[in-house]
Each structure stands twice: as structure tokens, then as C-alpha cells.
């Protein structure tokens, strides 16, 4: 529908704004309603009788499994599959790509992984409750909790659902119907006060609490420590999802921490505002989760990362509530206590309310893309853009493999989804200009702001790109790239149906090491796969997703066909571990935004030094001496 969206004009502008809104909010089935949710509401959890009608407006119900997969990514009604004709198809109605056929995907999939339609590895369809350990009950705690009226559950499905994030090993085990240690109980606080009560009771009765936001963790942060003998209670914040107030004078909003990204944006958009914080997981990840993991959004160049967006945080700890006394935009009052909270990964307490910066919705948005003859030139261009501090809202550079992958996801008929190369006159790039299709790479761009400035900005960026041999490659390609962000997460489940497992991981690295780290980590993955007996060439690719003054964020994707391996997850973990070692050896950080969790804990000491560890430990010891928040992340 927007194949010629470069037309300009105010109707155009509106249309783009709407379209953008729809991309973000469009997963909801027309449940956009009035301003009823934006009110400084009282805590709703006082009676067990909850307001059903307002419950319905939320994306995330208490029984998440009603709309979401229990053993894969995203909504139950949405998935990739190869249909009877062997064509890849994306089911459901939620996304722009939903219901479409991607004819090139099968060939790419088979060619890249050596996978075959004949060799399937389907998931166990339903969870057998016998696989789930009976809960360890703390009766005194439950007794008192009941009297507060806060809803809770011992249901096996509810518990299993909160026992994992989206690491490969977690999902792989679920697909095989294997369940380890799971929470013994799930509670759904409705507001800050509920949380205070829960934490008090937990301290009193020595119960282990694990905060649960959107469950999108990719660091094994939600995994229950198998050695935990106390009763584990998962504190699901999803029902704390209201915007408490909007302050238009200061452009801030007070929001409950359980709200998920898409609801937050949708509700703010209704009032003409946005936070601009858009992690790729924003459909499901929560504000509290972002704070707890130091999340980063795609458009951080304009809006900032979570640490730039947060003005005030309230967190309930075993020692009481921690918060600042005012909403001042910056303070010199010793080390910033927010920085103990941000990145605490649920080890210190539950974040309940956050004041965030908001911005008026952008007047104008424009996508774009640039093709470079090779990755080196692309990186050089991004570096220059960062140097001139003119990065668009988002700029991402895909390597050649990802460029091809994006090509393979091209749907069959749609003006928007014209072939990447067709739209650009294929031969112009590959032949005429001497671009080698096996080396070229593409950067996708997103500009935001008022129209004049966007157009000016756009020109500046394209001029820089030209200096590095980059050719503007149209808006469609850019837009398609960004739209795929939400869809790509579903692809892993398809791979897993055909013996292909994979994962992505990220790092941040100084500019002068970007190329080296990309090359070496990709090569290391291939090298390790070979050494560990993987029979097929792995997919090992990367992209530069964020630029900073002093460096960049790099994302790696890696996947392989595990046929012939007796313990694929173990092999996978070894390779991922080696890749992380390689990242560290090449000057990359342990994590740019995914966090440490339990997956990357082993490298914490070398990352932050002995003294650093000691500092964090002493904070933990003071705040939570009984290790009530016992998920054992980080330290």
C-alpha cells in the first residue's frame, strides 16, 4: 500500500503516521479504545472481583497461554510453516506479513542449512502436567497471601510459563516436553501496594520471589535455580499496566512497570505522545523488564536508551521501598541509585512504577535504505555518520548473508514487497555498478521528526553514504527491513521444526574493532561448529544495529542444522560460549542490552573486576540479606 510513499504532502504524512501506528499497534485485533485506561486509578486488587471489562483491553491476560505459545515465540495464532506445496507461509492476521506466502524462503532454508522438508522435528503439542514437579508449598505464606486477595495460581501451565525466557535451550526443552525447576506459585499483583505486601510476606516466611515481566529474557534470567529448596513465587507484573498520569508540562508519564511496550506506545499515542523506546521485543517485554535489564530500543538515537528515559523509579525491596524524593531531570547526589536498580535483573526487588520521558508523536517518518559494495564500506559509513552525530532514529547495517536472508523473506504478491533487487533494477547494482551480489550489504534507515528536518537529515546521510560507495536503495526496502523485526522472532520456531536451531546475541565494541569482531566471531562460530561435529555449514551472520560516539552495537545470528548430533543443545551452548569468548577477546562487551542473567554470569568478574563484584555483592547483601529475590542472576 505504500509502495510510492515517497510522494510527500500532508495527506501522505498522515498516512505514514497512521501506518506506523498500525505497525506497532496493529497486532491487536482492533481493541483500540478510549482514554479509559489513562487515569490515576486506585489499586484494583483490593477485591478478588476485578474489573473484567478493563481486563479485556490489556494485551496480556493472566493466563498468557490463552493467546501465546507455551513453547515458542509470540501469539498462538501466528507462525511460519511450510504448506502442502512446500511454500513458506505466515499464518494469522496480526502482522502485515500475515497470511502471505514467501516463495523464496524454502530454497534459502534448504540451501543455507542443508535442511529438508522430509526431516521434521516437531514439538510436543501439549504439556503433560505429570512432567511438572508438584509445587513446594509454604502454607503460612499462602495463608496470609490469600487474606490479601491478590490473585495467585498453582496451575502447572501457569507455573511452567513463568519458568523460562526465550533462550534456545529453554525453548528446546519445552518443545521436547521437558520441564525443570519451575515456580511453585504465580501471583498477579495489581499495583505497587500489592507488591509491598507480597514482598513483606515473602520476607516473613522466607519465600523466594522472582519478578516476571514479559518473559522475553534471553539470558536465562527467569530460570529457577534448580538448587532452590524454598518455595519459589513468580511475581507476574503484567496486571500492573496502567499509565497513572501524563504530565504534558514536563513531558513525562508515570507508568506501572508491568505494562508491555505495545500497550504503552498505543496508549500514549492516543494522547499524541510516545516514549520512542522500541526494543525489538516491545510487543511483549515490559517497562519493568527494560529497567531491570537496561534495555535498548531501536530508536535510541533520538529518544535514548532506557537509562536516558527514566526520570524516577520505585522499587520494592526486602528493606523497603527505594525511590528518589523528586522528579528532577538530573542530580548530583552521589552515585545515582537508579543505576543500582537498572540492570539489577530482579535480584534486588520489584520495580513497580516508573516516570518516563515522553515526546510528542513525530510529525513525519521516513524509511530508507542504502546498498554498499561491501561490509567494510558500510561500517566505514556508519562510523562517519556517528562521527558527524547525524545518525537517523535508526540505522542498521546488515551483512551479505542477512541481505540474502531478507531477500528470501520477500512475499509473493504485494506492491510493498517488491523484490529487493528488482525494485532497484537488479542489474544496475549487480552488474552495472560492479557490485558483487555475494559481497554487497545493505543499511536500513528510519528518519523521524518534522518534515523539513527529516528531508534535510536524509540528504546529509545519503551524501555521507555516497562517499563510501553507498547507493540509495529506496524506502520500501528500509520499511520492509524494519517490519521484519517483529516477524523474525517467529522464524526460529520454524527452523526448530526442521532440525535447525539458532539464536542471536549481541555486544558493544569500539569503532576500530567493529570489523575485526564481526569477522572473527563469525569465523569462530563456523570453526567451532566444524570442530564440534556439526555436519552442515552453519549460518553465521551479523549486523551493526546501533551507533554511538565511541562504538557500535553488533548483533550476531547463528543457526545450524543439528541432524546427526546426539546432544544438539549442548553443542549449541558450547559454540555460543566460544563465540562469547571470542567477543571478549576482541574487545567486545559482555552485553550491550540483553543482560547477564545466568547465561553470562561466568564472565562477570573479569568484566567488572573484583572490586566491582564486591560493590555489587555488598549492595545485594544490604538490600536483600536473606536472598528473597533469589533468581541468582548477575553475581
Amino acid at each position, binding site marked *: 500500500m505504500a509502495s510510492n510513499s515517497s510522494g510527500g504532502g500532508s495527506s501522505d504524512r498522515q498516512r505514514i503516521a497512521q501506518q506506523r501506528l498500525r505497525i506497532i499497534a496493529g497486532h491487536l485485533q482492533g481493541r483500540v479504545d478510549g482514554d479509559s485506561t489513562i487515569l490515576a486509578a486506585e489499586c484494583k486488587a483490593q477485591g478478588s472481583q476485578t474489573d473484567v471489562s478493563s481486563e479485556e483491553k490489556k494485551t496480556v491476560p493472566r493466563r498468557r497461554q490463552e493467546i501465546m505459545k507455551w513453547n515458542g515465540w509470540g501469539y498462538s495464532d501466528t507462525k511460519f510453516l511450510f504448506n502442502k506445496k512446500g511454500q513458506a507461509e505466515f499464518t494469522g492476521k496480526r502482522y502485515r506479513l500475515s497470511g502471505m506466502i514467501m516463495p523464496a524462503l524454502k530454497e534459502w532454508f534448504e540451501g543455507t542449512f542443508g535442511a529438508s522438508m522430509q526431516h521434521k522435528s516437531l514439538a510436543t503439542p501439549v504439556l503433560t502436567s505429570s512432567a511438572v514437579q508438584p509445587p513446594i508449598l509454604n502454607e503460612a505464606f499462602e495463608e496470609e497471601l490469600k487474606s490479601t486477595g491478590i490473585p495467585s495460581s498453582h496451575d502447572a501451565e501457569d507455573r511452567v510459563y513463568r519458568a523460562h525466557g526465550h533462550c534456545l535451550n529453554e525453548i528446546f526443552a519445552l518443545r521436547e516436553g521437558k520441564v525443570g525447576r519451575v515456580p511453585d506459585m504465580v501471583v498477579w499483583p495489581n499495583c505497587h501496594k500489592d507488591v509491598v505486601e507480597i514482598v513483606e510476606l515473602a520476607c516473613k516466611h522466607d519465600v523466594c520471589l522472582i519478578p516476571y515481566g514479559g518473559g522475553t529474557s534471553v539470558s536465562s534470567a527467569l530460570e529457577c535455580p534448580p538448587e532452590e529448596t524454598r518455595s519459589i513465587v513468580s511475581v507476574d507484573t503484567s496486571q500492573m499496566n496502567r499509565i497513572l498520569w501524563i504530565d504534558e508540562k514536563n513531558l513525562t508519564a508515570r507508568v506501572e512497570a508491568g505494562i508491555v511496550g505495545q500497550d504503552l506506545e498505543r496508549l500514549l499515542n492516543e494522547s499524541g505522545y510516545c516514549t520512542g523506546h522500541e526494543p525489538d521485543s516491545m510487543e511483549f517485554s515490559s517497562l519493568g523488564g527494560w529497567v531491570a535489564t537496561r534495555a535498548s530500543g531501536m530508536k535510541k538515537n533520538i529518544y535514548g536508551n532506557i537509562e536516558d528515559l527514566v526520570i524516577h523509579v520505585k522499587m520494592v525491596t526486602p528493606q523497603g521501598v527505594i525511590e528518589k524524593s523528586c522528579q528532577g531531570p538530573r542530580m548530583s547526589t552521589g552515585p545515582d541509585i537508579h543505576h543500582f536498580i537498572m540492570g539489577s535483573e530482579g535480584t534486588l526487588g520489584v520495580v513497580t512504577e516508573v516516570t518516563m520521558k515522553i515526546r510528542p508523536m513525530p510529525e513525519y517518518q521516513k524509511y530508507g535504505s542504502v546498498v554498499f559494495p561491501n561490509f567494510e564500506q558500510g561500517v566505514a559509513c556508519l562510523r562517519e555518520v556517528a562521527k558527524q552525530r547525524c545518525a537517523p532514529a535508526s540505522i542498521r547495517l546488515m551483512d551479505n548473508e542477512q541481505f540474502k536472508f531478507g531477500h528470501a523473506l520477500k512475499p509473493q504478491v504485494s506492491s510493498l514487497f517488491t523484490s529487493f533487487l528488482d525494485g532497484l533494477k537488479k542489474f544496475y547494482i549487480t552488474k552495472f555498478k560492479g557490485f558483487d551480489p555475494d559481497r554487497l550489504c545493505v543499511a536500513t534507515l528510519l528518519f523521524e521528526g518534522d518534515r523539513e528536518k527529516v528531508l534535510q537529515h536524509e540528504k546529509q546521510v545519503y551524501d555521507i553514504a555516497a562517499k563510501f560507495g553507498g547507493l540509495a536503495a529506496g524506502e520500501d526496502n528500509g520499511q520492509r527491513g524494519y517490519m521484519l523485526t517483529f516477524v523474525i522472532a517467529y522464524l526460529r520456531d520454524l527452523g526448530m521444526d526442521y532440525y535447525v536451531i539458532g539464536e542471536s546475541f549481541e555486544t558493544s565494541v569500539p569503532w*576500530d*574493532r567493529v570489523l*575485526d*569482531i564481526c*569477522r*572473527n566471531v563469525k569465523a*569462530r562460530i563456523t570453526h567451532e561448529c566444524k570442530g564440534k561435529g556439526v555436519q552442515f555449514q552453519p549460518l553465521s551472520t551479523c549486523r551493526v544495529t546501533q551507533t554511538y560516539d565511541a562504538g557500535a552495537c553488533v548483533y550476531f545470528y547463528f543457526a545450524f542444522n543439528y541432524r546427526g548430533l546426539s546432544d544438539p543443545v549442548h553443542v549449541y551452548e558450547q559454540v555460543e560460549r566460544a563465540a562469547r569468548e571470542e567477543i*571478549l*577477546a576482541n*574487545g567486545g562487551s559482555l552485553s550491550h542490552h540483553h543482560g547477564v542473567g545466568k547465561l553470562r554470569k561466568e564472565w562477570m568478574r573479569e568484566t567488572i573486576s573484583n572490586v566491582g563484584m564486591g560493590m555489587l555483592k555488598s549492595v545485594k547483601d544490604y538490600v536483600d540479606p536473606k536472598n528473597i529475590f533469589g533468581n541468582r542472576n548477575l553475581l
Partner: protein
Amino acid sequence: MASIAVYSHRDPMLKKRDDFEDILEERRNSSDLRYALRCYAPVLYKGVAPCKSGMLKSMVLQSDQLHYVINQLSKETGRTTADVQVQASAILEEMAHCLQLSTVRFFAFTLCKVFKTLFRSICVNEEGIQRLQQAIQEHPVVLLPSHRSYMDFLLMSYILFTYDLSLPVIAAGMDFMGMKFIGEMLRMSGAFFIRRSFGGDKLYWTLFSEYVKTMLKNGYAPVEFFLEGTRSRTSKSLTPKLGLLNIVMDPFLKGEVFDVHVVPVSISYERILEETLYARELLGIPKPKESTSGLFKARKVLSEDYGSIHVYFGQPVSVRSLSEGKVNRCQFNQQPRHIPRRTGEDINSFVNDSAYRLVRAQEENMVLAPWVLLASLLLQNHHQNQTQGMAVDELTAQAVWLRDVSRQYGAFLHWPEHIPPSEVVSSSLSLHRGLVRICEGRVQLAVEPAGAPAGPGEPHSSVTQEEELLSRAVTVLSCASYRNQALHIFVRPALLASAIHTASSCQKQEVFNSFSFLRNMFSNEFILCPGATVQDFEEACYLLGKTGALQVTQQEVLVTEGGHRTLAFLSNMLDPFLQGYQVVCRFLCEEVTETLTEKLFIPAVRKFIIKHLLEGRLRYTEVLSSDLQKNSLAALLRIGAVRKVQGVEQATLKVNRVMVNSLEDTLGGKLPTQKAVVARL
């Protein structure tokens, strides 16, 4: 004693080696010109185009590293950066190679002719070539040939050209530059030149290392250099030099390349062109300066038969896997990589260990001719009964025995199986007829001037005793250099044999202490990997046990009935070195005054040794080798028995007499090894 099981060594005999192919054979049957002019299209690293030398130079001149150092120098000295820049360009000009295919073709053509007259065959393991070809495509490659002759690097390039492989860029010593024309020719065939010493010259060092790294990182050409630094005059491998190895490993350690593959190459000459030249040099008869005319004088060399050359391209070694668990690459994350920094201890010891491993890898694939065994036997015989020599039959029988022993120790012996041993022996003797005399069915070293006086034109009478001794020594040292080719096979068992000999009992710990002492003493003399005492001991025990010479139990090391012969042979092999070190000790105790400068050490010790030899107090003429003298001094310095005191002009040697004395006695078996100084087994 429980550590025995920890080290499991591979049986060296089971080592699999590739077959050889004679590359001269085809040259004898088809046109050399066509060969030299044929299409040459080598595979390249990830398909990169080889870069012109001008481009390479400008990359080096534009590198961050160089800029940093230039700025620093300019700040330190007050010179303008432009000025330093000019100097940098000049240095680079002097250093850089300038590979030209036409010159390569010229060499290919000429060398064909030369090689065909000099050598019977040049044998190359083709599987090694294939492995190399593979490696070149996947990773930056460093070629590390052994260095026994001037011939080595021309030979290497010749072989690579023959197999259509990328021609290497070779680090060559500046001394070649003395020969103007040849120097430039070599430059055009891929050599680049480095000054021998540029210790503190930061600018030079930076240019040099950037030059090498730029080639490596971009994969333009394999880099070739000699790990031993210089030609070994003794045919023993030399203690590796670390400078260049450090440089080529650096891009990997800093993450600038995924990996670097290092390929040890073993070049074995059946007869070394420089044979007597080396012996003279070791004896202190001054070295002729390398000059073009000097090289042409070597033309008479062309009329002789030098047998075969074997070139074995070893398994490429991945620096990445070598370094696994040994270095922490994160240390380079704390500051920009172009700013020079002191290398960490872990890196120094990693490079050192790797260097030893690589030299051992070279040694392992050195092809030994039967003559090497004959030379060993003849030398021992020579020292036992100076005059009569050995009956040829006896020599043959012993050679066959030694052949079998050395094979069991893993020697890569080229002993033609289809020919009766007597013929193998006689043809070996005839190839080396300058070194042996056969008379009435008996063989001995040709130490007496064969009928004619030592030097033509010189009146016989003027030959002093000393001159006669030296001329005998030339033959002995030449012979010893062949024996030395086999030393890497025997050194560990020989150290054990000597240790058993000197140990006060056959208690294993006792023997190990002696072994460890000797090994430590000789670690400047032979290639013994640092810190591998226990492994070496285990290996020696294993080999001698396997061949039935020893019975090794938990507690004891016992020589078997049949083992005495082997053990005697082995200790005899080491004996010249043992005696030599003792004499040097004695010299230091008896003769050294306060003022012996380092420079005067060699002439003084030589004089002392000559005296001993002439007085009949010392058997082994080969102790006259300056190599042995230098090595023993280095060992004593390392151990701390001698100290270097930096004087106003020169360093003088300060001897700890008590210590040197006791070392001498321990070497002579008169004092038990001090337990405290050696590790427990």
C-alpha cells in the same frame, strides 16, 4: 612419582610421514625455458589480488602505528614530523621487497641449471604442498624453513614457483645487501632486508613490524623467515629467535585476523654446500665477507656432487590453537591497538614455547641420510682408537644396528631398502669422500693430510702443530655437523644415558635429578623445550624401555643385559659436549682474571683448549667449536655461575669460581646432583 601417567607421549615411530616426489626429474626431461616462462597463476588468500610493492609501502607509511611513533619521536627529539616521515620512507625503501615475476622466472631458469648440476634430486612431499595450498587460501601463512645454507630461500621460492603457489616474501639479513647486484636480484625475487641489529630504534622496529603485519593481515603473500635467525653452522637447530615470530603472531593476538597458519619446513641436505666453510668459521678462521665475487668463487662448488635435498612441508600450525588457554587476548582491549605496549609475560612465554615447538617440528621432519649414522659411528670410533679406523664390514653392521635403533626413536631416515646395506654404506662414503679415507678395507676420518701437505704452495715444514690440529679439526667438525643432524633423535635418550652413568644409584629420582641437571646445562646447546623436563625424561625412559635397553619401574631405572651397547653409544654421543663444558669451566676457574671481556672470551678459551688438546689432556677436537664455547658460556650466564658486568666500554665476565667448580665436578660425575636445584619427578 605419581606424575608419570600424566604425560602420555605419542610413540615417535608411529609418526606418519608423506612420500616424496623429485621435482628435478621433470626438469631433466623437458625444457627449462618453457618451465621458467610457463603460466604462473597461484591461488590466493580468499582471492585477494597480490598488491604492488608501492601500494604496500604506502599502506605502511599511512598506518596508525607509524603515525603514532613518528609523532612520539618528533616530540622527543624536536625534529619535525615531516623530517621523521622522510627518514621513515628511506628506511622502508631500503627494506621493502619488490617482487617481479620476470626476475622470478630468471631465477627459476638459472636455478634449474644450477640445481641439476649440483644435486641428484630435490625431493618434496607433495601432500605438504597441498596442505600449504589449502592453508594459503584460508589464512595468512608464515613459512618457517630450517636454515642450513644460503641456498634455502632461493630453493623455497623455486619450489613454490614450481608448484604454482604464491611466492613468499622473505625476511633476509642485511648482509646480502653487501652484494649490490645479487641483493637487488633477491629483492626482486621477494626478499626484503632487515638490519641485523636495531635494538632501540623505535622507528625502524615499527616500520619493519608494520611491513610484515600489513602483508600478513591483507594476505598478499606468505611471509617467510628463519626461526633460527641465521644459518646453523653446526647442523644443530639453533635456539629460536623470537622477534619475527612475535610480529607475525601479533595480528592474531590483537584480533586483526582470525588466525595465522605457520608452516614449518624442513630442508635436509645430503651434503651441505658450505660444509668446510662452516667448520673453518667455527674454528675462528675468519669468515669471508659475503660479496658477489665471493659467491662466484664458489663456482668450483658447481663441479661437485651434493647428493639429494629433501624438503618437507610440515603440517600447518594454527596460531589460534597454539594459543588456546595460554594467552588472554583481552589484555589488548585496554588501549588502542596501534599504541605500542609492553607485551605481557604470558605472551612472551607463549611465543617462546611456540618457537621451540616449531623448531622441534622442523627437526622431526628432517630427513637423515645413512651418512649421518656413519658419521656418528666414525666419530666415536675416531676418538676411541685414533689410528686404525673401522673395517667396512664392521661399520656396515653397526650402521644397520644404528639404523634400527634410530628408527625406533622416530628418525626420518632415508635408507634405501632395496639396496644391500654394504652398498648403501659404500655409496654414502663415496659421496663424502673428502671426509673419509678408505684403506685396505678400513675406514676412518680423513684427518691426516692425505699424502699432500695441508695447503698447496705452502712448504710442509712451516705447518705448526697447531695448524695441523686445526686442519684435523676441520674434518672432525665437518663430520660432527652430519652427526649433529641426528642429535634431535638421540638427545633425550643420550641425556638419560649420561644421567644413569653419573647418578650415584639407579633410583629413579636420583637418575631424574642427574637428567634434569644435564638437561638444564645443555639447554642452550640442544633444542629442549622450556619447562618440559618431566616430559623429556618420560620420553627418554619410554624409548629406551621400548627398545629393551632399560627396565624402568616405579622406583628404579635398570640397564638390561643387552642395553649396554645402546647406552654406551648414547653417552659417547654426548661425551664431547660434557667434556667441552667441563673444559670451559676449568678455563673460567683457572685462567680468568678480573678483566676478561666478553669479546675476548672465545679467543682465550680457544687458546686454552688448543693447549689441552696438544698436551693430550683432551680427546675431543670438536670442543674447538666456537658454537659449543658460546653455548656453554650462555648456559653459565643463565645459571648465574658467571655474571656479565657492564664496564665503561665493554662487558666483562665475573666468574663465581665456587659455583663453576662444582658445576664442572657435577658434569664430570664427581659430585652428586644437588637435589634442591631440581624439580621432583
